């Protein structure tokens, strides 16, 4: 309760400071819109459904791309951890591509897929896949061999060991990899949306882009707030339950 109060007070003070700064009229309100103007934009945009539909378009792209990235990264990471050949080839490729900001894929994606949803999806998948792959690889590689040995003595073999020992044992790594993958996917999608206009749907990035073109900084600021909020919610909804589970079982801080 006390913590909630402190957090609320902190953010209230932050908004107040913002408001006072705008009231001081050091910068033109065109450059720095106040919380009231931003609030007004958000309220209006909520009422006409524009914000919701843009958020939905963005989240749909993110979810689908992220899911594909995870579903591919998980088995591939397990494979590179278990095979030297795959590690020397696919593993090195993944390591290299992970360092590439995935927005760098946008020009190629546009040529390959056109100005389409597929191009967006491709960029998100590229943002997710490699970091998930590398984390899973790491997790499986750092697995204490005693777990699989113990499982073997109890009669566990092959797929059973994979499903019931290797996968859960590498969970701390897998979760942190999925979290990192999520962050990369989110960043790359925003960059791609600002960069490329798609007629098939306006996402949050497009709203930012249009806001800039229309010189509507209250729109830009408002959408930024929404993006932050979605990021926070995703963290709380998608990852916090897993991290709590890890903490309870492993006794880890994370």
């Amino acid at each position: 309760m006390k913590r909630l109060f402190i957090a609320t007070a902190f953010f209230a003070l932050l908004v107040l400071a913002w408001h006072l700064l705008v009231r001081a009229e050091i910068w033109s309100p065109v450059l720095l819109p106040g919380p009231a103007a931003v609030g007004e934009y958000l309220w209006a945009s909520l009422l006409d459904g524009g914000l919701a539909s843009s958020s939905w378009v963005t989240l749909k792209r993110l979810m689908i791309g992220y899911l594909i990235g995870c579903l591919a990264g998980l088995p591939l990471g397990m494979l590179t951890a278990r095979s030297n050949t795959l590690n020397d080839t696919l593993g090195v490729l993944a390591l290299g591509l992970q360092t590439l900001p995935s927005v760098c894929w946008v020009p190629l994606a546009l040529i390959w897929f056109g100005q389409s949803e597929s191009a967006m999806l491709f960029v998100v998948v590229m943002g997710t896949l490699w970091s998930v792959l590398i984390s899973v690889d790491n997790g499986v590689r750092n697995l204490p061999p005693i777990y699989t040995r113990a499982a073997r003595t109890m009669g566990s073999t092959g797929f059973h060991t994979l499903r019931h020992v290797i996968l859960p044992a590498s969970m701390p790594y897998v979760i942190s990899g999925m979290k990192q993958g999520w962050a990369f996917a989110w960043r790359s999608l925003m960059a791609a949306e600002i960069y490329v206009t798609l007629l098939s749907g306006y996402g949050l990035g497009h709203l930012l882009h249009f806001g800039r073109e229309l010189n509507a900084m209250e729109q830009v600021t408002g959408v930024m707030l929404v993006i932050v909020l979605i990021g926070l919610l995703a963290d709380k909804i998608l990852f916090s339950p897993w991290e709590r589970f890890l903490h309870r079982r492993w006794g880890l801080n994370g």
Partner: protein
Amino acid sequence: MNDPQAPPAKLLIDGVNKTFRNSRGEVLALDTTTLAVDEGEFVCLVGPSGCGKSTLLNLVSGLDTPTHGRVLMDGNPVTGPGSERMVMFQEHALFPWLDVLGNVLFGLKLKPGLDAKERVDVAKYYLKLVGLERFLKASIHELSGGMRQRVALARALAPNPRVLLMDEPFAALDAMTREQLYADLQKISAAQKKTVLFVTHNVREAVCLGDRVILFSPNPGRIREQFKVALPRPRDINDPALSVLAGEITRALKSHTA
């Protein structure tokens, strides 16, 4: 052994040796060894590190395969790990993603012929046997070292193996906890008539637990001497009679490794 009327040994380690390859070439970890263990016998393997005792245990468990020779259980060659020979490791090797009950259930789920309720009943029975019936839902990291090894013991016992292979299971525990576990293990192995191979470098521990103590020496690892322990059970590790025999074995151990 040569008497055709005698029942076959529960475990027969028949002319087994094991060579490992490392960066400096081949290392003979265990020289050619033959050893027969009777049904219900508690055999302790003692020796300094590198004497091949753990190697031998891994060969019996099926986690490793011998370079030459074979391991027989009830006359059948051991070809891999199996739940009729359960292993207890020095590190508890419990799974942190499962709670205490889940860990004991792991091996039971791999055993055919039990439904879900029976499995839980069996797991609870063994957890009660090791005195942990109140910790079914606890996470492994919440338990003390002694409690973890108790869970590991329950996990090893639950699939009802005929043979129990223990690789220095109490080495990392404090003396008080260890003594309690000596008492528990003697009680359980006597009641359940398990055949046990128990690896340790602690001679008193071996004398306290074993019907027979087998002495190993390193470079290359091999059996040097055997001692029958005829002391009455249950044994207390602080019993003077036990100390006398332990002293004798320790002297023999020193003479072989000097």
